[in-house]
């Protein structure tokens, strides 16, 4: 897989739960519980999941905000999950950037656009003199289709869409190869969303970027991602190329998700899988059910599901699923 840019290798992140006078560990929140997949250069990999799925924690580990408990994140031949590696190679931060969900809080309200954008330039020594900074900031704003004199505005003077464009400009400042997009348009109105997504797609094409696109909006995912991974309680339930996942969803959770989407046309309604009425709620990641973690809610659970945790197995071309209904997922247990 020489064209894979990022490879997650059995990534695990457990947060300890402490209680009592001596703060003893009484359990753990298994936010990410064994995730492995790769991102190919230039692709948009979509990560879908509801609350408790671990998708945000996964992003945090890739970005270095949270160190993993075990497992590796291979980037450019190095394990960037290891804090020591990150310390030794600060230039890693240049290559991996992020766009957060809420533009209102991802820009410091007390700093102008220019001050926000010049930070990455200064930190990585890409510009130091005033004139240099001014030019580069202007060029960044141009790339996100904002007028140059916006650099003197404070965030509160900008609309949600404009703020998000600034956040995108900040992510582009260090000329990264990989950008994590965590719900980049969820806080925006739908009429603005399209323009921001178009901008992101356009930038990807021009600059050869790789995106990890995290969202709960499946309709959006359908039109943006090349491949999609569905996460549930810290593990990947299903992973497939986008069209394949939406036309042939295999995992019962995927089918449940797809049938719950509120759509706006009869045509789309017909494309949804046969109605799987959503049941129950996602349990807390601190109390994950035994065996297959989805079994209490699964309409197709059977005898082996509460006992044994399924393993991922290929089901079709590039289509991986982790469910006892499919061959290869039930490991031999003596």
């Amino acid at each position: 897989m020489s064209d894979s840019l990022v490879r997650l290798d059995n990534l695990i992140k457990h947060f300890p739960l402490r209680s009592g006078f001596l703060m003893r560990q009484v359990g753990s929140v298994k936010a990410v519980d064994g995730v492995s997949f790769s991102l190919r250069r230039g692709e948009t990999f979509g990560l879908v999941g509801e609350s408790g799925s671990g998708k945000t924690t996964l992003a945090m580990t890739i970005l270095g905000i949270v160190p993993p408990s075990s497992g590796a994140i291979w980037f450019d031949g190095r394990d960037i999950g290891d804090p020591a590696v990150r310390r030794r190679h600060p230039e890693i931060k240049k290559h991996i950037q992020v766009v957060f969900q809420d533009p209102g809080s991802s820009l410091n309200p007390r700093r102008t656009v220019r001050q926000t954008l010049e930070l990455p330039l200064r930190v990585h020594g890409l510009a130091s003199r005033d004139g240099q900074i001014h030019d580069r900031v202007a060029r960044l704003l141009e790339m996100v289709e904002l007028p140059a004199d916006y650099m003197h505005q404070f965030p509160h003077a900008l609309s949600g869409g404009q703020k998000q464009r600034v956040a995108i400009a900040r992510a582009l400042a260090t000329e990264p190869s990989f950008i994590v997009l965590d719900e980049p348009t969820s806080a925006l109105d739908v009429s603005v969303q399209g323009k921001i997504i178009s901008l992101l797609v356009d930038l990807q094409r021009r600059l050869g970027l790789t995106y990890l696109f995290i969202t709960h909006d499946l309709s959006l995912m359908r039109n943006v991602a090349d491949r999609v991974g569905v996460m549930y309680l810290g593990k990947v339930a299903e992973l497939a190329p986008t069209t394949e996942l939406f036309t042939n969803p295999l995992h019962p959770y995927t089918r449940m998700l797809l049938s719950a989407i509120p759509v706006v046309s009869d045509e789309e309604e017909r494309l949804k899988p046969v109605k799987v009425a959503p049941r129950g709620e996602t349990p807390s990641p601190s109390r994950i059910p035994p065996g297959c973690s989805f079994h209490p809610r699964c309409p197709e659970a059977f005898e082996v599901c509460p006992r044994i945790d399924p393993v991922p197995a290929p089901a079709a071309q590039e289509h991986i699923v982790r469910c006892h209904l499919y061959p290869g997922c039930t490991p031999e247990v003596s």
Partner: protein
Amino acid sequence: MSTVAGTFRIARREGAARAWYAFSRNSTSVAGLIIVVVVVLWTAFAPWLTPFPRHARAFTDIEHANQPPGLPYLFGTDTIGRDIFTRVIFGYRFSLLLGLVVLSLAVPVGVALGLAAGYFRGWPETVIMRVTDVFLSIPPLALALAIMAVLEPNLQNAMLAVSVMWWPWYTRLVYSLVSSLRQEAYVQAAEVVGASPAHILLRELLPNCLPAILTKMTLDMAFVILIGSSLSYLGLGVQPPDPDLGTMVADGAKYMPDLWWISVFPGLGILLIVLGFNLFGDGLRDVFGVEV
């Protein structure tokens, strides 16, 4: 299209204008501001704006001692013939000076410690906050008295004593602000970009703490002046013949209620400036929307 730098100035100016608009809707806040401004200006230009500037120093005029309020001594004279009105105005100098010095010493120290404790966590947090807790558990005046007990009573030492016990309030304020602000997306974004902790503390976090800090400083001026006056009242601060409001109240206490004006007017003077700063600070609190 205005120039690039011009847009920046306009943005800043509009921010200030908007803040003033919100502030000015509240008449008590504006009243507080007016009181503070008037007192500050008057005492700054006291030699030219008082009837008897020489009375602010060593001066005696037994002939005119113990005069009740009237003309030309608006607030009357004290037991050695000095004009109380003039001395009250000059007395404000010491009050304000005490406030300024204490805050200039206490605030930077307190804020720096609060930033460090809130952002770095771990043992710096534990050490700093436990020390802060110890200081905060002692009533302010008692602590100041304890310190003054070992130092020679004069203005400088009084300022020192009050500064030493003042910084923990700022540490606690900033610590709680930083603890919540560090979760904000813009701080995480700065970390992801690779900003140094110094940058994050000073450029990302501190500016967002400023409204609360400034509001607290304004309200604190009132409280510091009160503490300072209390120390002087006990003879531990400004020494005679310098006019200080607290000392003046103490001097006149033994002559109450006959020569009431010797204590009452300095007391009202303290009341006025404390009220002014409180109203002004309350107004700032409303405008900034902080919880201080």
